[in-house]
């Protein structure tokens, strides 16, 4: 089994990354910045799911990572389309 210290260090780095991305998500200043921060948050959560898979040894958690990656891509495409076609914005 893997050393718990390594897993905890990885969790610490991932969670502080999530915190930074969340600060950018709240600060803005424009809607595309927030979309980029949301996409990064989704990929950080997918990485956290991977670390959790290694820690617990349950391989079924990988499906969550697949779905998260898919959802992040669809969200980005949807927001890009929305912005380009000129939907209502309230930055």
């Amino acid at each position, binding site marked *: 089994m893997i050393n718990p210290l390594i897993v905890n260090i990885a969790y610490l780095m991932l969670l502080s*990354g999530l915190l930074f991305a969340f600060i950018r998500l709240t600060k803005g200043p424009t809607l595309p910045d927030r979309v980029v921060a949301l996409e990064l948050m989704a990929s950080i959560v997918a990485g956290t799911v991977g670390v959790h898979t290694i820690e617990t040894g349950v391989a079924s958690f990988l499906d969550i990572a697949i779905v998260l990656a898919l959802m992040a891509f669809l969200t980005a495409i949807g927001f890009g389309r929305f912005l380009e076609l000129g939907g209502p914005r309230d930055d």
Partner: protein
Amino acid sequence: MIEWIVSACILTGAALMFLAALGIFRLPDLPTRMHASTKAGALGTSLIMIGVAFAFMDVAVTARVVAVVTFIMLTAPVAAHVIGRAGYFVGVPLWEGTVKDVLRDKYDPKTHHVESGLEEVEGPPKPITYGMAECPVLQERDEFEPKKSDPGG
């Protein structure tokens, strides 16, 4: 031995994702933030997934890991391109230290037209329809038609 490979993959991936988040927090404008988050974020997720494959040493897990990594490597550039393009078109301000912006003189945000420099050869520009001109629902809507004249100037 495998444990060391898994530890190296996890730590490198987590550090890369931390760097991506630091870049998204510290960098000054949208394209620089996107360049930090897309490249480092995709590589970080992929490294952690490769660590998962090494930790399990199983065919089913490795197949799923290959699927995730391929999907991330395929979709991260596409998503970044779409958001960057949309951000430029809606007029997100660039950093004041930007050295090169090729579209600045050639793109007109009102008509959404980009000059190619070959207008004499190719004739007048066609109206941009986003590839939805064939959609019957959008054809019935008046506001989708390109404006013939702009009364406001």
